[in-house]
């Protein structure tokens, strides 16, 4: 098996290297063939591995590949841990990645017009894009397959690097290169916490290996550390690690980079900023469940942050008009749901939602990309409308994705989101009540923004200009094929996966849940099949709120917007301070810009000009040079060249010496 795992990881890397370094020589077809072959191989093998775990009871693999270094008696290894959790993640990552690879052939086909004439970077941009997304797949696999904290951090930062490269893919666009810098720096703030968390692990466990750390963890459950006036070690470690997750999985207040990341081409918004990379935090916390279980404080923190993100970011989605940004805020909100699930110790539900979300959100983004292609890169939903007539496949798949997103009964998102809300409802830890309320209200918001988008884009009279309208047509099969391939699991995977994942505890040893935290056992205890689960779900508040949101979106569409297309402006007027708050995104961006970006430069300039230049150089260095010069100028007078001056000095010296000798 080790060889198989190695091939799964290295095949995309190989594709990335070939497409990246030799893209110019092998041409577009060569580059996308080699990249797709690499990722395809790893997808097929990953699915095979997953099937082994499902049907053949494959044992977990935990082995080292090579020793990175040995320092101070601690071994730093590079190796793989493949258990059921990892196998599931590998399958999701490589499958979505493969779909995105194929889709990219269509999406990037006429990328040349995105570049200025005189730019040489634009020349092989197609090949480079393939190289990056293959490199991303490699990095993400390293992340999920790691068997130790250091390799996890490697994957963690490597996906960040590729995300940086892809958000700023159009290097000539100011907005893109600001967004990627912001993304990298905000992620680094998260990684700052993450690396300190790793350092804490190394200090107390003397190991980086998951298995070893998890085995020792219970022994440290009561350990206190003298930081911040004394906290429990597990709380410190878990919160530090979770700060990393907040960066990568864009939880408040480190969420600010994700909406801006939409500057990147749409395929990567689907792959990186919806389906896989941003869920790394969810995966990481799940992987660390043996640690998080030991700190209720950390779990509460996770729960509240997740729920706040789920609700507050959903609200912003209501006032966005860029098709990708609406979906981006939706992603933030859904990530909040997953994180909240983790806080409630419902790790399996978090991973379940991660999986269904990967499919339906990748689908929604790719459908949005398909719309954007048809709209000649106009992303404003106010200029769209009536697209279902022109793009039937995009329309129907987007509808499937939207229904999955709003947790419409029977669709995959219904199973995973309902399980989360129910688990949080059963949670007893601090903050669970608030979190539960926020998540339930979130259901209404989700349906409202999703179907506002859906109606504005696909229904009604077309509002685009004549030229665009006359060219509207369905996108080629390389685009629609992946849409269909993703729509299938978006609709069905929930039905099939809920029983093994949440009821039969398929993940098994891969996660640890303490008995008193187990919020999913109610679900298992009252399990009477999917049909019953749906029936039960339809009697609960989240379902009615979600239907309410859908109806409100329909009302907005049929009664308000159809009659008066300027209704958005009016609503905003009426919403007053509230809508302005949402449009300012609660002021996070302004605050960061002013305090961190501005403040950092201000302090830097102050230190440079005042301290370095005026104090150290001006006063001390040049000052002492001047002082030496002044003394030397005085001393020069001593060398007058007159004999009697020298003679006088000698006599004076003699007298002083004699006095000294006599006195001592």
């Amino acid at each position, binding site marked *: 098996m080790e060889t198989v795992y190695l091939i799964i990881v290295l095949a995309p890397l190989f594709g990335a290297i070939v497409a990246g370094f030799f893209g110019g020589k092998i041409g577009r077809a060569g580059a996308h063939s080699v990249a797709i072959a690499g990722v395809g191989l790893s997808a097929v093998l990953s699915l095979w591995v997953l099937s082994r775990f499902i049907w053949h009871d494959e044992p977990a693999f935990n082995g080292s590949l090579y020793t990175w270094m040995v320092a101070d008696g601690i071994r730093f290894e590079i190796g793989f841990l493949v258990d059921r959790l990892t196998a599931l993640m590998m399958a999701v990552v490589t499958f979505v990645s493969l779909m995105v690879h194929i889709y990219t052939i269509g999406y990037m086909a006429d990328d040349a017009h995105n570049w200025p004439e005189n730019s*040489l970077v634009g020349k092989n941009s197609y090949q480079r894009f393939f190289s990056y997304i293959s490199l991303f797949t490699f990095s993400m696999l390293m992340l999920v397959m790691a068997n130790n904290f250091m390799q996890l951090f490697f994957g963690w930062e490597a996906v960040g690097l590729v995300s940086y490269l892809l958000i700023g893919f159009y290097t*000539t666009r*100011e907005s893109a290169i600001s967004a990627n810098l912001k993304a990298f720096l905000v992620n680094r703030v998260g990684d*700052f916490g993450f690396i300190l968390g790793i350092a804490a692990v190394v200090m107390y466990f003397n190991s980086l290996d998951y298995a070893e750390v998890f085995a020792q963890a219970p022994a440290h459950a009561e350990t206190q550390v003298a930081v911040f006036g004394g906290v429990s070690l597990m709380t410190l470690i878990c919160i530090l690690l979770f700060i990393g997750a907040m960066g990568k999985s864009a939880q408040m207040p480190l969420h600010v980079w994700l909406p801006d990341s939409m500057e990147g081409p749409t395929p990567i918004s689907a792959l990186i900023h919806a389906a896989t990379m941003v869920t790394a935090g969810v995966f990481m916390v799940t992987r660390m469940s043996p640690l998080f279980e030991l700190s209720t404080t950390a779990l509460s923190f996770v729960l509240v942050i997740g729920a706040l993100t789920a609700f507050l970011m959903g609200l912003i989605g209501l006032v966005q008009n860029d098709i990708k940004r609406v979906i981006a805020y939706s992603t933030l909100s859904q990530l909040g749901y997953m994180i909240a699930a983790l806080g409630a110790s419902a790790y399996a539900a978090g991973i379940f939602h991660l999986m269904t979300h990967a499919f339906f959100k990748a689908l929604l983004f790719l459908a949005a990309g398909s719309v954007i292609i048809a709209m000649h890169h106009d992303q404003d939903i106010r200029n769209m409308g009536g697209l279902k007539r022109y793009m039937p496949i995009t329309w129907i798949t987007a509808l499937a994705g939207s229904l999955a997103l709003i947790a419409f009964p029977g669709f995959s998102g219904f199973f995973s989101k309902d399980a989360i809300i129910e688990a949080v409802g059963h949670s007893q830890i601090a903050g669970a009540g608030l979190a539960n309320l926020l998540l339930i209200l979130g259901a209404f918001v989700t349906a409202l923004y999703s179907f506002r988008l859906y109606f504005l884009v696909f229904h009604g009279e077309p509002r685009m200009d004549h030229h665009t309208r006359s060219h509207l047509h369905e996108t080629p099969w390389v685009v629609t094929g992946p849409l269909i391939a993703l729509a299938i699991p978006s609709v069905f995977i929930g039905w099939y996966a809920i029983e093994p994942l949440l009821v039969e505890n398929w993940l098994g040893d891969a996660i640890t849940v303490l008995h008193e935290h187990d919020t999913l056992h109610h679900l298992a205890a009252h399990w009477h099949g999917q049909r019953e689960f749906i029936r039960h779900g339809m009697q609960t508040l989240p379902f009615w709120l979600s239907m309410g949101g859908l109806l409100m979106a329909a009302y907005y569409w049929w009664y308000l917007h159809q009659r008066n297309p300027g209704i958005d402006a009016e609503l905003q007027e009426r919403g007053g301070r509230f809508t302005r708050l949402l449009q300012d995104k609660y002021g996070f961006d302004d605050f960061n810009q002013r305090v961190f970006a501005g403040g950092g430069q201000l302090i*830097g300039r102050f230190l440079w000009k005042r301290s370095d230049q005026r104090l150290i150089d001006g006063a001390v260095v040049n000052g002492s040079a001047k002082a030496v010069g002044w003394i030397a100028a005085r001393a020069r007078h001593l060398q007058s060249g007159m004999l009697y001056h020298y003679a006088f000095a000698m006599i004076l010296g003699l007298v002083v010496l004699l006095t000294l000798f006599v006195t001592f």
Partner: protein
Amino acid sequence: MLLEFPWLSLVIWLPIIGGIAVIASGEQNAELTKRIALGFALLTFVMSLPLWFGFDASTAAMQFVERSPWLPALGVDYYLGVDGISMPLILLTTFITIFVIIAGWDVISYKPSQYMAAFLIMEGIMVGVFSALDAILFYFFWEAMLIPMFIIIGVWGGPNRVYATIKFFLYTFFGSVFMLVALIYLYFQTGSFDILGFHAAPLGLTAQILIFFAFLLAFAVKVPMFPVHTWLPDAHVEAPTGGSVILAAIMLKIGGYGFLRFSLPIAPDASAQLDWLIITMSLIAVIYIGLVALVQQDMKKLIAYSSIAHMGFVTLGFFIVFAIFQRAETAGAVMGIEGGMVQMISHGFISGALFLCVGVLYDRMHTREISAYGGVINRMPWFGAFVVFFAMANAGLPGTSGFVGEFMVILAAFRADFWFAFLAATTLVLAAAFTLWLVKRVIFGDIGNDNVAALKDLNRRETLNLSVLAAATLAIGIWPKPLIDVMEPTIANLVQQIQVSKLPEGSDLVTPPIARLQP
């Protein structure tokens, strides 16, 4: 045979002889002199390889030792040898010099033979510094090093080179005078100039503290540490590309080397007492200098400040050892020092490469102002890729060498004190901010002006230089084990050594010296 051959002498004197030969060849045939210079640089590198292959990584003892009387009347020996600390630094020196010679190939038109010769001689002297085991021999090389660098900046430097050279010379000279006094004092204490003998010298606390400060002045200026760092940005700005590369990649390391070879083993009790001072200075370097780097408008100054911030990790790694002892612990001590060492080697590659990158742009546009650029990648895609790579390495991305040292130091610092690690880890944000903002303004964006529009991508020589350095950066990032293994016994031994108090009243191995110093 491998061990008996005087490899160290060869690696010291071969480039110096080469330098003289290059000068002797005159300025008539520039092409020929360049080839001779490159030949000597390559040969020296090859001759330094046996130091690595023949190195016995199981012992902390000095290897490749050469010893013969030099000035018998004064007890001065010609005494050379390397251990796991100096050997990697010597290889770094012989490695980097090759690229400096290649980088100067097309761009130095004024007296190229003397330029090349200065670097070859410099190389020999620096190897001498790293391998000297006699204090006077060390001091000889240490001071001799200033002369070629003084000439390199003074002759091939920028418009403000006189101020920069004087500042550089006075700063470093000021520091080293006190070191000489300390060395002479130690001679009177031990009766010889044997550096290893100094290590064993029993010294009282006052003597140790005075010696510590004398060394500190010399080494802190070289590293450079806050607040004696202001010479470095000026020197870099005025130095030609090659000078900057040598300065950043190797000369700064001599300060770090000095701490390990002199300060720690000779004055362990003083180091333990004053560790807070060095740790504070190091953390200031990381944060204060990081913020100053953020607002620089000159590319070279920015990278110079970045160097100071990164060297802060080196000194931090060396001195958190004592803070760890203070907690009656030893775990993490070896990792801290090793982390500092790895950081030095890695910084040699990365800063060297970044200065070469600035050189590439300067040779084409004759300005280092960030605002004069913008959208360079549109005309120089390969160059842009290299810059992004080295910028990421500078920001400590895992998989590059820049990560290894910082990671180790942060892990070790956490064992000493949560807040040391906390402050040190701010570099994750700061270094990324100043480096990637530079990349954004220079490399990315739309083509800024006509001069940028006329840029040509890397030529073969430039590509070769940057590729090899990138490979080295990656190699250490992906597999640092060979490097760590070479250093491990020496550093473990050093950690043992500095745990033993030199104070007269006792020398038990277990109790860390600081425990007795505190009431």
